[in-house]
């Protein structure tokens, strides 16, 4: 029997941000930021559990995070959080039918009304907001 190409590219296909424009980049960033935030969340739960070890245990774990590297990681987390939130709201609105445009006849070059300027602006705005939040976070952490 002839082998059927099911177009299963696996992780390689999933992390390829090319071919489909900024929407595909947003898709990838959404998943990367989600995984990063989940990792941070689990680490944060472990970090805060050290309060049960008393003052010594708490100050020991806080001294690890209150370093330049710790602050840079936290700034990246802030950026991921803001992008994930802003882009998540865009996705939610899109799935509710808001801002996706009206269906049109599929004529060459087959423009997709759902991938319109409003959504592109929302994606770029999410990236800019994330960058601004990271800068603010760095200013707060290194300012003290």
């Amino acid at each position: 029997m002839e082998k059927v190409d099911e177009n299963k590219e696996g992780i390689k296909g999933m992390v390829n941000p090319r071919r489909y424009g900024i929407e595909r980049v947003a898709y990838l960033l959404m998943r990367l930021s989600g995984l990063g935030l989940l990792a941070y969340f689990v680490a944060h739960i472990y970090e805060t559990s050290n309060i049960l070890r008393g003052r010594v245990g708490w100050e020991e774990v806080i001294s690890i995070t209150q370093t330049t590297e710790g602050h840079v990681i936290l700034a990246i987390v802030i950026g991921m959080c803001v992008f994930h939130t802003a882009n998540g709201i865009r996705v939610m609105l899109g799935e509710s039918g808001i801002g996706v445009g009206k269906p049109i006849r599929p004529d060459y070059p087959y423009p997709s009304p759902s991938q319109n300027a409003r959504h592109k602006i929302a994606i770029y705005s999410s990236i800019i907001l994330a960058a601004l939040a990271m800068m603010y976070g760095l200013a707060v952490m290194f300012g003290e």
Partner: protein
Amino acid sequence: MRESVIMKIHYGTALAAVALVAVHVLFRLTQGFVDSLTYESVIANYRFLPYAGMLEIILILLSIHGFNGLRVILLELKQGRSYEKAVSYGCIAAMIAIIAYGSRTIFMTNMGMV
């Protein structure tokens, strides 16, 4: 449970978590970032019942949202009856474990067992 219901829960937990995490972050900023992380300040936060309650709600919301998000990503990657079951049950187990571990910290600190 239907996937459409799961996604409604996913979006609901996201919106609620955004509001509550904003309050959590504001607590750090209003006290001063470094000062808010001192042992006394953290203990005082945990012993303040409304704040501890909010932390518990954030813990539950983010665990549900986070592990359902992980489930969605893993199911996008590969499909199959046994694989999908393993991923779904694995994510539920991880979610329960994180909620239990985080709740232990909140309850023990709130009740003065530190």
